[in-house]
């Protein structure tokens, strides 16, 4: 089934979350949101609330795990971390994304003038 718009978006958000957790280690929701915004160079106006349903889904799929802990400014926060299964999923997703991105890139590359 070809992925439609929301699928791509949702898949993208999941990919970003998983990558964030791999790079930064355990993070709370706010930390993940900030990281995604920073990495996008503030080009992505993330409605931060949309993050949480995605987190629930990733947790239910067993790719991330949640644990309560204290944040750096000593607030009680829920920390999410990548599971081994999540790491594998991330690798697979990343490969898939690169393939797709490569294809799209070739499509969008300036075409050779025809003779």
């Amino acid at each position, binding site marked *: 089934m070809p992925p439609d718009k929301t699928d791509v978006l949702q898949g993208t958000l999941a990919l970003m979350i998983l990558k964030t957790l791999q790079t930064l280690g355990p993070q709370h929701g*706010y930390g993940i949101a900030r990281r995604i915004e920073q990495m996008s160079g503030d080009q992505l106006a993330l409605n931060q609330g*949309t993050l949480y349903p995605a987190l*629930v889904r990733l947790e239910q799929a*067993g790719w991330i795990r949640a644990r309560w802990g204290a944040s750096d400014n000593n607030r009680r926060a829920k920390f999410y971390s990548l599971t081994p299964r999540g790491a594998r999923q991330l690798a697979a997703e990343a490969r898939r994304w690169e393939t797709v991105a490569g294809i799209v890139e070739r499509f969008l590359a300036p075409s050779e003038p025809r003779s």
Partner: protein
Amino acid sequence: MSRLRILLARLAEWLRPRRPEELDDELQTHLDHLTDDYVRRGLSRDDARAAARRQFGNVDQTKEAVRDRRGFARVDDLLRDVRYASRLLMKSRAFTLTAVLTLALGIGVNTAIFSFVNAVLLRPLPYPDADRLVSLFEARVGAAPASESTHGSSIAHDAEANRITVAPANLGDYARLTTQFSGLAGVSLVGRNLTGAGTPERLLGESVTWNYFSVLGVAPALGRLFDPAEDREGAPPVAIISDGLWRSRFGADDRILGGTLLLDNTPYHIVGVMPAAFTPAMQFNSTDVITFWTPAAFPADLLAQHGDHEINVVGRLAPGATGASAQAALTRVSEDLARQFPQSNSTLRAFISPLGDDVVSKVRTSLLILIGTVSAILLIACVNVANLLLVRAVARRREMAVRVALGAARSRVMTELVTESLVLAGVACAVGVALAELTRRLLVAAAPASIPRLTDVTLDWRVLAFAALVSLVTGLGFGLLPAWQAGRARPVDALRSSERVVAGTWVMKWRNGLMVLEIALSTILLTGAGLMLKSLVLLNGVELGFESDRVLTANINLPVTRYPTADDRLRFFDALAARLASQPGVDDVAFANRFPLRGGWETGIGVDGLNLPGDGSIDVASQAVSPGYFRTLGIPLVRGRLLTPADVKTTEPVAVVSDEFSRKVLAGGDPIGRRFRRAPTAPWITIVGVVHDVRRDGRDSAITPQIFLAAAQTNLYPVRIADLAVRTSADPRALGATIRSAVLEIDPNQPITAVRTLAEILSARAAERRFETLLFALFAALAIVLAVVGIFGVVSYAVSQRTPEIGVRMALGADGGRILRWLLGRTAVVVAAGAIAGVAASTALSRFVTALLFQVQPRDGAVYAMAALLLSTVALATAALAARAATRVNPTSALRTD
């Protein structure tokens, strides 16, 4: 893969829900972090908080989105709705009680009737792989169908109509020359006198071919089945007995095997006992219980007679065979037989039909009509409840509008209302099932025993599933209407002050439509009941032509082993009649082969001076009777003389004929002195008298030509003299004991059976019709009661809606009578529409009840008019009662309510 994991995770969450505060805390922390962030960027605390909220988005929406993902929020919603609906319903008890009772009535009668349909029509016969069992019968093809209404129908239908029993001579060929059956077994009912220990008893049994039990797929509880060797002429007699007989007669003694059963003075070696659960194939056609089986052991001369049709045949299709392939093979064999034995078989073909079809065919029509009837009742109940819900929905429309205005999803509001209806239906289902069980017990107790498989009528899982399904469908049916109405709720309505304004004209239109439907349905049921009732009245008015109230009859079957000749039997009956004639209370005594209502046969006769077509004979109903026959039955003499004790073997053979015989067979002229004979070489029998016509087979039978032979002069007859009747001016049933002791005084080993007055037999014959009529009348009454309740509700509500208008009219000078006429005028239009629709629908549906009617046209105008008139009157009276409240309206207060 991950889908399954997610599903399992959600299931775990659903079973152990998280605390909602957890999510609140998490989101709050996120917001706090965001706020800190903005404060660090230099915003004031308050501005930072606002900016954080903007950045975060809608917190409630997030919570809702997360909640939707966790567990199964929809199920939780449903449970919450159910709890909410239950609370609401508990609050309005009057509404709930009315709705539940109305629905429960509808569901209850439907479930009860379905339990009959289930037992009689749906449940397979109690044999393994019962769908592979067939009934084999023979039929004359090309002959005119026995009933008149089958013109132009299919061959199969004609075969069914001309169905006759099978000749044992043909059965062998059907079994031997086809490979389509794993077995074909012959079976016929036999009666035998049981003597030996205890009082003599008349038993009903089946004479069967040796493979009968294995074809049905049943095994004995004790002992063994028959051997092929035992099913041969001259083999030592053996018997298998029923569990019931084993218990009642032999004290459930295991040592019964090897014992003997004395039937008609012949000792039968008992080889087996059948289990209690076994139902013999012929039991479905008989109200008397079958208690023994003996091998048919067809005599050689019978096996040579292809024209002698004596037995019923059950068969089991071979693995791989279908009904069609078996039928094709049978047709081929029958055609071969037709070539081989043209005299007896030229028009004869064998047919099969699923076993049990013939058993239920007679009740199928009644049951299907009953299903239609109770469906109509359920529909009326639904209409009433839909009405009630509509009133509630209108009353709650502002509430709904407010909720929609405040942002509640329409779908949520509608779901809530449908849930409420389903909760109602659920409770009604439970009450309905209880009602159904009660109804079932009453019906089974009241039903005539002639309805097949009555003992199988139970509320099994199928019936319960039916009740649940009906409840679900009705709950959705009447629940969608108010839900749809709520779906139309516009937020602006919330701002309007008056509820009355909200109840738009479309609501009234709906309600009028529902009322028309109720009246129409009730009219249909009432018309049906009226037709049945008229049939019953007409039937009871039919003259029988003989006395039935004061005549007690009994069957005394003398076994050939003890009374080998006709003279022996005549001596017994003469002695018995003489003995009884002197008893106090006995006015007349007579004996015959059979008395009216107790069986009958036809004899082929040739008439002197009459050139009859074909082989020169005509089949006429005939009986051999004693001289007292006509006096005992009160059949008057029309001309000539009756039979007398002087008509004996040594005198000229004489007979008495019926009026119809002299009209139809002799075609007028003086019948006295005319002669007929029963075979080309038999002696002539002279007609000496003509008696009045009788309806031999009961009120719904036709008058047929009949001849009465002198019992003392007749020794050739298909059934031996066995029936006795006494006429008394006292209570006839008191004479039963007198007859019994008189018989035992003459022969202590002779049982007597079927001791009944003719009136009792008549009543039992009419029992099915009476029962059906009673059911239809009750259901029609129930429909009318429900319709009255519904109409009352609609009209009272309409009045309450129009109170201000009425107030204005009264203030302007209209008096009570005028208001009433105005209100009733509107109702009358609706009632008339309903009655007309009902009559029209009845006309269209009437052909379905034709089979249940007796001498009543399915479109009997008087019945239709009565039904429509009765229902209109009741409806208008109800409306008037409900509208009376309007005439008591106080104009001032009426105007103030707004």
